[in-house]
């Protein structure tokens, strides 16, 4: 009888014992209260570090597409749609605001600067500061027409837009050449067909009309081959006509 029992034990150990031996957990030794506290603290630090790695401070610029009580949807400078969450800690500011300024005062189409916490996982941003920005517009193209009496120029761009540029006495005009670098120049240096870069502020009524702050002319660098200056564009059109033709496109 004993031998039969021994036989069953051997068989059991041979087939089942091996399978059960591996996953059998070893019982952990009992921890002291100090060790338990240390482990809890370690866990808390680890989770906080993970949280900090997931969230980072970021600042973005975009045009307001939709505004609700808790969320702003913007189109950023890379043309991506971004979702911005707003809470009771978010501060709003506008250079033109006289009194208090809140989320309901943000009109669609305005350029916003948003500083906040970006969550890499959800790809959303929790705004801490929302400011309305008035940024200058940069127009890069070729001079399509020059009016030396009115001190205005037309600039044709790659995307077939035409901008009417108003050159003021305060406008800083520069010329870049390889030999001399960036040098101050006058309005007379601006020639039709030349590559030009204009930094200025758009007219409130007409977005294709710019009041130039800074102009750089590049006489040695040819214009972008994609820019086509039509003969009709060389005509000294009135600003309104130029704007209308650009808007129609």
């Amino acid at each position, binding site marked *: 009888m004993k031998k039969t029992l021994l036989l069953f034990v051997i068989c059991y150990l041979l087939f089942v014992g091996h399978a059960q031996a591996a996953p059998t957990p070893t019982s952990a030794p009992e921890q002291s209260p100090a060790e338990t506290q240390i482990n809890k603290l370690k866990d808390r630090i680890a989770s906080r570090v993970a949280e900090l790695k997931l969230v980072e401070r970021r600042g973005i610029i975009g045009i307001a597409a939709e505004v609700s009580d808790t969320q702003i949807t913007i189109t950023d400078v890379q043309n991506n749609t971004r979702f911005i969450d707003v809470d009771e800690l978010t501060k709003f500011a506008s250079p033109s605001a006289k009194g208090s300024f809140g989320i309901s005062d943000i009109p669609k189409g305005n350029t916003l600067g*948003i*500083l906040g916490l970006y969550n890499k996982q959800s790809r959303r941003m929790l705004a*801490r*500061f929302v400011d309305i920005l008035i940024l200058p517009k940069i127009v*890069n193209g070729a001079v399509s027409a020059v009016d030396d009496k009115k001190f205005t120029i037309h600039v044709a761009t790659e995307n077939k837009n035409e901008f009417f540029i108003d050159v003021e006495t305060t406008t800083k005009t520069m010329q870049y050449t390889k030999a001399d670098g960036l040098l101050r120049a006058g309005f007379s240096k601006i020639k039709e067909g030349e590559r030009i870069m204009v930094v200025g502020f758009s007219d409130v009524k007409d977005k294709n009309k710019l009041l130039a702050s800074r102009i750089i002319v590049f006489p040695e660098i*040819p214009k972008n*081959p994609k820019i086509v200056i039509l003969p009709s564009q060389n005509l000294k059109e009135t600003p309104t006509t130029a704007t209308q033709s650009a808007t129609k496109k």
Partner: protein
Amino acid sequence: MKTEKIIISFIAVAIGILVAAGAFYFYQTTKIISTSDTKSVSLSASTTPTQPPKPAVFLSIDTPKDEDVIDTKTVTITGKTNPDVVIVVTTSSNDQVITPAANGNFATTAILGSGENAIEIRAFTQNGEETKVTRTVTVSSESF
């Protein structure tokens, strides 16, 4: 004597099972599928994605990273482009025209205003082609 026979039988069965399992494992790992049993699939030209034409001028910006938040108003702009281009760095208040080194690397500093700043970096080739990269950099010492 009878018990010994039973034990030997069990041991023989166990060894038999182990040998069979080993032989099956060896067969599975060394199995070769004959070419007659395989089916070849070729991709037609229409399914191959067409590569977009490479631009003649490239421009990559190493620093600053887009959407960076810094606490000083001076930022260093570094990057790489074609060696023979002209680079124009434009901020809200200033313009700089620079040329890269022979290996295409370039570096310059720009002064920014408080809050969000858009930095536009353009590269123009000698035949008029151009490319542009925009970086948003925020100057803020606010802690949150």
